[in-house]
């Protein structure tokens, strides 16, 4: 079975390099230009972030101002406020643990073994429940900490997770309503979805935070945090609904007909036949939507929440560290990057795997 290929003599290393980067004069110019840019940037970055940077808090802000490099001591001095916001100092381990719970939950839900409706619901329900209990306390001997004291990374994660937890089922409902055979239901739903999609997220957050209290009776107003989460979930679900609907369109019509012929009722057809297949089709786009939604969580800073971006502003905003804004933003950007990059890499991996298995 083995094929014998008579390989041309392997080119030497230099020859290989020449072919790859200096084949034509234009190639050579492009290569050299890119190389210069890269070396310059990498050197600048390393020099700033590592070689001339200050890492310890021992010198205080003054030590930083003396050097041209990064002042990482601001992170060392202020990391607690970035991660935990105004959460009480002695209880911050709870906030940390809650963040770990969310990360574990996210990782678990990336494992295919958990991709049944019940298991995913279980993982997310348990994860969010654990998060909530840890943060809020008031039970199991944990001191009570109200939502107004939540902040930093924990608040960002809380808003993201609850947005998905509410938005996802809502998205499925919207998608089902939109593809309903009953014209008035599908038209009304289409109007809602397209309307929400045509608005910027900030305006929706603003409406839910500031305007909605006017339009709701007193007993329905609830906390501003939960209203904003609701708004963000609505926005998420309008986009996700179209993704789910796309997944449903990828399921052959014969599937539903077969289920009908077997006597299954509407909900049985939807839950056992349609959704499992549709969600599988929609998986890569869904992960992409999660990524986008996680990035957009940061917008709640505009309606006045103390999430990670606001706590970052606070970390450098007070007196002595005023000059160290680049370091703080770089640090927050790095945190976002880790979450977003790994999730989007995972989505790309999944997409490739699915397109291979289709062949």
């Amino acid at each position: 079975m083995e094929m014998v290929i008579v390989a041309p003599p392997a080119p030497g290393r230099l020859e290989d390099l020449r072919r790859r980067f200096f084949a034509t004069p234009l190639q050579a110019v492009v290569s050299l230009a890119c190389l210069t840019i890269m070396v310059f940037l990498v050197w600048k970055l390393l020099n700033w972030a590592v070689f001339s940077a200050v890492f310890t808090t021992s010198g205080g802000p003054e030590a930083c101002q003396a050097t041209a490099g990064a002042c990482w001591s601001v992170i060392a001095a202020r990391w607690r406020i970035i991660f935990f916001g105004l959460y009480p100092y002695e209880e911050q381990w709870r906030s940390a643990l809650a963040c770990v719970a969310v990360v574990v939950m996210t990782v678990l839900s990336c494992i295919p073994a958990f991709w049944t409706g019940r298991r995913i619901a279980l993982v997310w329900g348990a994860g969010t429940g654990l998060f909530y209990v840890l943060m809020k306390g008031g039970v199991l001997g944990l001191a009570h900490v109200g939502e107004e004291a939540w902040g930093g990374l924990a608040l960002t994660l809380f808003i993201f997770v609850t947005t998905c937890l509410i938005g996802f089922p809502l998205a499925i409902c919207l998608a089902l309503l939109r593809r309903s055979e009953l014209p008035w239901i599908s038209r009304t739903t289409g109007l809602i979805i397209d309307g929400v999609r045509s608005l910027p997220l900030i305006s929706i957050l603003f409406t839910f935070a500031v305007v909605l209290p006017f339009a709701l009776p007193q007993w329905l107003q609830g906390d501003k945090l939960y209203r904003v989460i609701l708004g963000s979930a609505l926005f998420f679900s309008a986009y996700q609904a179209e993704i789910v609907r796309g997944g449903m369109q990828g399921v052959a019509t014969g599937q539903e007909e077969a289920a009908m012929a077997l006597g299954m009722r509407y909900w049985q057809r939807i839950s056992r036949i349609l959704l499992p297949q549709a969600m599988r089709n929609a998986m890569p786009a869904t992960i992409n939507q999660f990524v986008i939604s996680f990035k957009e969580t940061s917008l709640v800073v505009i309606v006045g929440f103390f999430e990670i971006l606001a706590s970052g502003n606070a970390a450098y905003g007070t007196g002595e560290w005023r000059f160290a804004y680049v370091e703080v933003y770089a640090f927050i950007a790095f945190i976002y990057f880790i979450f977003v990059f790994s999730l989007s890499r995972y989505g790309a991996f999944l997409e490739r795997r699915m397109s291979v298995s289709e062949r």
Partner: protein
Amino acid sequence: MVSLLRNQKVRNALLQVLYVGSIAAMVLAGIVIARRNLADQGITSGFDFLFKSTGWDVNFSLLPATANDPYWWYFLIGIINTLFLGSVGLILATIVGTIVGLARTSSNDLARLLGRTYVDIFRNIPLILQVFFWYAIITHLPTPRSAHEAWGFLLTSRGLYIPFPNVGSAAFAAATVAVIAAIVLPAWLGRTSLLAQPIGQRRTIQFAAAAAALACATIILALGRLPDTPLLDFPALQGLNLRGGLRIPPEFATLAIAIAIYGGSYIAEIVRGGFKSVGTGQVEAALSLGLSPWRVFTLVRLPLALRAMLPILANQYVWLMKATTMGIAVGFTDFFMIVALTINHSGQTLEAIGILMAGFLAINLSLAAVFNRINKAIALKGNQLRG
């Protein structure tokens, strides 16, 4: 009764009535309650407030604006600001995205690596964080007194100062129109009246049209030039302040930069996808016809790739337009911020929200209409190429 409920037609009708009815009821109840709450605060609903003067200022406007102007004028300013910032951001993002996207599709490993790094970094950091970052950078620039200077540009914490022609605003607007015509006219000519002509002649006419429009622009600028001043006005320090040139406020510069960089990373991916979708077959066929690589690029790869990416690009542009609402984070008076300020100052909550929705709906729909037209035009070209 029970048997009636088991009837499919009855059920369907009932479901629809219930669904639409409950949504309508919720919306109506919300409006009624809001009107009552607002009335309690002494705010009468209605659109009369549009003609009252605002009493507050906007920090950025292309149109003349004072605190005495009525609300409707401010809404107009807001929409124009949004469209202006959006178009600037969109053009910059397209330039960035095209360069990075081409780097990502290049055959050079180093260029690809650079492009990929760019996309990976800037796509994965939230736009609002980038806005904050650039705003902090710009507002921490040196004061005008110790400003950086490079090629006549001045970077200061009070904004970016760039050289600017010394002309009246009417003449400047006319010149802008002429420059836009210089871009649009050749493309339009290429599509319609000249199709029958041989390609060489077509090119000549297109060039002539562009040149004529540009000449017009130059003449307008020269004529509209303010008396006794040089044509280009360079910013320079005078006393404690900067004089001359055009000042781009920090808020505008921040948003334009952030949108260009963030949007550029998305557009780069779209550009890459577009070029990837062009089969190697077509390119090889063109090369085998003896066309030079440059002509293969402009005649085959570019048109085909454009056709593939335009629908996605249109979505991205709509998204970019909506991203101008980040203005409120740094205090740029875009449409949304004007609405928010209106609610703060006048209390006309429902009306302002209604105007907000209508405004964005109009922006979305008109953008969609423009892109549909371009799409059709490009699709036509694609067919000619195939035929």
